[in-house]
């Protein structure tokens, strides 16, 4: 992985202000910004890892844990919010036993909260990978999640 990161940094070498594009490229390649990634960037850019972490955490676009096999997004946009998006998020958190931005221990699922998926008529919605599940009220979410975990087991 160190070499991947070095390859990413190479064209930028020495350029001040190239930190964010580098971080973006690293996230795209590896899915997240790891401790190793930051120390490799630090070493190659002659910056301190804390400085880089400070820059990265200023933006919400970066994640610091390895994403799971499935990305679960719970919408908390206005429409979903009024139709019980908050409760849906609580429920999902309980099922997966993680908070938004985290990944389950078996790295099967990552959870994220999003602002709007553009399908407010279907509120509240939950999105797993690229599939949108409409009107997810009550225990429906358990079924959806279990579908993904069981299909994994079969594979």
């Amino acid at each position: 992985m160190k070499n991947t990161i070095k390859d990413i940094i190479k064209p930028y070498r020495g350029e001040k202000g190239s930190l964010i594009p580098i971080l973006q490229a690293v996230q795209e390649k590896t899915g997240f910004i790891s401790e190793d990634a930051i120390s490799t960037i630090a070493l190659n850019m002659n910056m301190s890892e804390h400085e880089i972490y400070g820059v990265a955490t200023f933006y919400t676009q970066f994640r610091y844990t390895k994403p799971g096999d499935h990305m679960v997004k719970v919408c908390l946009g206005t429409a979903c919010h009024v139709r019980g998006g908050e409760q849906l998020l609580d429920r999902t958190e309980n099922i997966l036993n993680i908070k938004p931005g985290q990944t389950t221990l078996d790295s099967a699922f990552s959870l994220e909260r999003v602002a709007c998926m553009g399908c407010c008529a279907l509120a509240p919605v939950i999105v797993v990978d690229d599939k949108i599940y409409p009107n997810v009220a009550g225990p429906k979410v358990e079924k959806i999640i279990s579908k993904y975990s069981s299909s994994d087991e079969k594979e």
Partner: protein
Amino acid sequence: MLTIDGKEVDFKEGATVLEVAAANGIYIPTLCTYSGLLPFGACRLCLVKIENMRGFPPACTTPAAKGMKITTNDLELNELRKNVLELILSEHPNSCIICDQKDLCGNYNICPTKSGRVTGCAFCPNKGRCELKQATEYLGIKEIRFPFTYKNLPLEREDPFFDRDYNLCILCGRCVRVCQEIRGVGAISLTKRGHDTKVGTAFNKSHLDGGCQFCGACVDACPTGALSARGSKWHGIPDKVTTTTCALCSVGCSLKLETKWDKIMAVRPDAEGPANQGQACVRGRFAIPALVNGASRLKYPLIRRNSRLVPATWDEATELAAAKLGKYIPEETAFLASPFLTNEAAYLLQKFARVCVGTNNIDTSSFFSGPVIQSRIKHSNMGAETIIDIAKSGWIIVVGGDIAASHPVLTVKINQAKKRGAFVSLIGSEQNINSRLFDSCISVEPSGYFPLLCGILKTIVEKEGFDSKFVTGQCDDFDKLESSLKKIDLQIIAGTCGISQNLIEKLTSTILSSGRGSILYGPKTLECDDPKQIIGMLFNILLLAGSPAGFVPLMDGANSQGVADMGALPDFLPGYQNIADKGSLSAFENSWSAKLPKKPGLNYPAILNAAVEGSIKALYVTGGEIPREISLERLDFLVLHDIYPSPLFETADIVFPAAAFTEEDGTITSLEQRVQTLQAGTNPAGMSMPDWKIICKIAEKMNVKGFEFSSASEVFDEICRVNPLISGHGIRDLKLKKKFTLTSVEKTSPSKRSMLQKKPLWHYRGVDLTEKVFDLKILHDKIFGGQDVQGSP
């Protein structure tokens, strides 16, 4: 010319509005400005009005311009500032700042009471240094109109030396910036954003894991009580503050000792210090109280009775010492001067040895004694080494020393040079604790220094890119150097030191294209076969680059320079007056009114050898000079000056308790040859005494005249009279030379000191600091992975 509050003033190009105001005695409240840091514009308290400028620009980030009309203080501005400060205070526990009873409890609220943290009463460890309070008082805020939010962050105490309570943090960023901009470390950073912003480390690592060097600069920069030195957190306001010089290394940082109940409770760097300019390192900032207040400090003299060391009075002990020392023939007696002695003590010790005992067997155990001193005499003066010069260099080479561990404050200057674009390289096999400091590292063992330097010099001379004007005008013996280099084959060189020709070429072309430079050479250079030659070759590089300044020895003892200057050397009298020279000998005989021994004495390794063999019968040791593996069984009589019990107690016949440097007046001479004063912050521990006083007392018992001093300054007066190096004002007389001699390169026979002593990296008079300061041990183990690291060979 610009107008500020109706006053027409001049200003320097590039100054900010805030600086112009301050220079003209106009106060503008600010919390995020800190001397030495770039403007940041975080706190928004310094908002001003400038005619024809939109809104309220912050004074700290607005450059002053011609014709500006600035208002710094009116009702509208103050209302605005009040709002800003109230918002800051709504997230900072504030009852101690705005409580209407605060004047009544002012005397007590600094005390170590442990009342609720949330109320803000009496838990802040800022010891009355609160810039928030100053600003609040200036703006006259009586109440806060916003609801108060307590962040309820856990207190961070897992790291050594200092605590962090980020509930008190106002996010001015001074700690982050001082760490990054001044120290060049960047161990902390502002993480996250908005309400969640917090000073922290990557992935919440501990500071220890994150590469913090615990210099304490962040603690000093903090305007609130968020960062506090743990050891002295609850001691309250000091009774007394004394400015002195740090005697833990040779940089010569000026420190402020804060004393309470006659104990050193805290130490802060002095912003006016010529060498450190407000900076310190982990030892100076945090280790001193634990070192000097240790419970096992020696408090009374000890003498050997029935094979045991028992307490004695000063009279008993000094009388015994006088009687015994008078018994031996002079050649059987030897004196060792610790490189941590003051100039006064070193001067009196050599005077005592020469006048009272009549021997020249005196030397210092500093690594930087023989070779460095000799080459310095040879080159007359090797440029005025100044720390400021390092910051002005275009290139810097550190040779054979872990500078970030041994002389951390110098890295501040290296960092300054780096910011101006200097190229910094390391030659040596040292681990370095701050790898970001160096642009290139040439890893080579001391045995490879000679071929490497030959290669560098040859490349420089052959390329003819050197400063020929300076070399022809001010340097002698260039031809000799050139012809001596002719014999050297670059390819063989690359083979012997394992450094590729390419790397050598790269380094030399950087040197030649970056103007004047600095070379800092550490104790490993003395491990080479011929240290004098290596030092001469390093100086050659500087001369060829066109400037003799910036040649800095990383001396191991705090006063290695001064102890040698004072004549604690076997072959030189004070001021490097050669003993073989009849004129200088008789001059000293006159001023001391005594007959002096003519035969040069033994040097440090020879003294140790003689003590082992038994030809030295009486030895006088002033702190930590005897390596553990040396057996002193055949010694007849051993006198010690010590501040803590040491392994030598097994053989010592008399032990005198010495005062630590925080407990005595005097002077020490730093590596840049600046004579700096020590001032006692407290009384000496127990019955201990400054070294110079102990020597005077023994001389008095021996009935020898010339030791009747009542204070260190009287001793210094005599030094000024007899030592031509120190002028009447007590300033080291630096005769800047116009002519320099280039050293020719030739393979010579080894002349290194055979018995270099292994010492702990951080020590004071033989006391391993990590043994006395627990947190320092944690840091040391972290940096060096628990290995026993020697400061030198």
